[in-house]
């Protein structure tokens, strides 16, 4: 009886513990700062447009598609970043010693809100911790944007 009880408790405890373990793991996922609406909508745009090349983890693909993690292109000047989305990107870029060469098509057909959301999402995901991008900022860059 006693052994049976101890056995049962042991099983329950280990279940409880693995559950707790899973919970802890869950909690270590990147905490989303800023507007959660922008994050949710930004993720939607990312999944529709960006994921094909930059991949689900934002890591890109070696030699071809640059990563969006921990690079000045993403974390630095917002105007430059917004312009990349509007105009595309057709230069070789070297990040952490790796060269990336695929062209990025322009995405000027996206609405200001969508660009703000997706850039906010990218700047706050994959371990990135940069400030949000606002619709006003996108609007301003788009107004001043000269493609050629």
């Amino acid at each position: 009886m006693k052994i049976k009880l101890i056995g049962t408790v042991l099983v329950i405890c280990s279940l409880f513990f693995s559950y707790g373990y899973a919970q802890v793991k869950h909690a270590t996922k990147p905490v989303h700062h800023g507007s959660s609406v922008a994050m949710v909508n930004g993720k939607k745009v990312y999944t529709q447009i960006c994921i094909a090349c930059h991949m689900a983890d934002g890591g890109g693909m070696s030699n071809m598609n640059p990563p969006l993690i921990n690079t000045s292109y993403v974390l630095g000047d917002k105007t430059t970043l917004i312009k990349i989305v509007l105009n595309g990107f057709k230069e070789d870029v070297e990040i952490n010693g790796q060269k990336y060469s695929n062209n990025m098509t322009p995405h000027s057909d996206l609405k200001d809100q969508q660009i703000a959301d997706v850039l906010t999402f990218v700047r706050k995901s994959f371990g990135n911790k940069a400030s949000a991008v606002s619709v006003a900022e996108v609007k301003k860059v788009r107004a001043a944007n000269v493609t050629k």
Partner: protein
Amino acid sequence: MKKLLIFLLPVFAVIGLIVFNACKSADNGSANEAANAGLTLPTGFSAVAVADNLGSARHLVVTPENDIYVHLAGTKSGKGILVLHEEGDKTTLKSSFANFGGTGIAIKNGYLYASDNTEVFRYKLNEKEEVINPDKPEKIVTGLLSRRMHEPKAIALDNDGNIYVNIGAYSNICSDYDPNKKGGPILDSAAGIWQFKADKPDQHYGDGIRYAGGLRNVVGLAWNQQDNQLFVMQHGRDALHDLFPNLYTVHQSAELPAECMFALKKGDNAGWPYVYYDWMQHKNLLGPEYGGDGKKPADSKFIDPVAAYPGHYAPDGLLFYTGNQFPEKYKNGAFIAFHGSWNRAPEPQAGYCVVFQPFKNGKPDGKWEVFADGFAGTEAQKASGRAVHRPCGLAQGPDGSLYVTDDNKGTIYKITYKK
């Protein structure tokens, strides 16, 4: 009793955790992975890693003396070709040479041929197939286009003194260069296979022949000795759904277009950028940029592939097996090294395997099968595209073993068969 239980709870919890973790690490089965160097193979086959951490190992050749020439994508300590000597399933680095990285490498009629992204060189070999003068290659072809995309110049040689060089399109689908849809303007100098003389120095475009066109990018190509014909594997276009969301679903965009095997004749046009092959409909279709809708057939002037494979698998190596070691069904069939996809997201990435394509009388015959798998690592590593190893080059050893390079970690696998 209750008090005792409360006291024991955390103790049990810790035990539970230890047991749980112990089970988890046992599941990883590292012993299993070590067998066959982590690969899964058909019954009777086994694999060993004869070299590791070489860098970005692209194509390779193995000599009758068991020397392995490996071409690295870049240079390592200033050298782009490694010479390994294999003995007892282990290799030692014999030497390294060539101040250029690249993909193409081949041996024919006493010469080692190797390419970088714009040129093809050759080195004279001695009777043991060793390079006589590693510092003084002869430049055979020069000045080939290399514009950031699809740069590697993969090579193959025929039996009549010619070398075939892939010049990949520097574009996914040419729309940047053809905004008014008047016809891809880059096709005169890229997106095809060029034929040059294997022994004439300093040849440029004008000295060669545009042997076959409309090929977006070819990395795996091989001369088929039965047909006396060039076979190539095309990397199909990307982004059908991204560019035409109204015509193609995310799933169609992951599976299409097919990666195609073409048997080429001089003057053939495989149709890029105007057409693509749908392996589910078994049809060559008109591309959406040129009025296609996923159903309209392509002009029949474009050749059909002789075999087709799922989208974005990225065929980087092609080898016709002529050895006697493997069972009879493999003789004269094709092995294809699929580098693995990146353009299937949000669907799981796929490929990262070596496929066997049965042949009969010099033509593909019957369904292809996955021959060697497991290069990518776990299913999660494969699905995310974060593969540990990525198959690239293929070579046949003097005893009929199959060699596979991995250009991610630089592993060289040797696959053998025992009855």
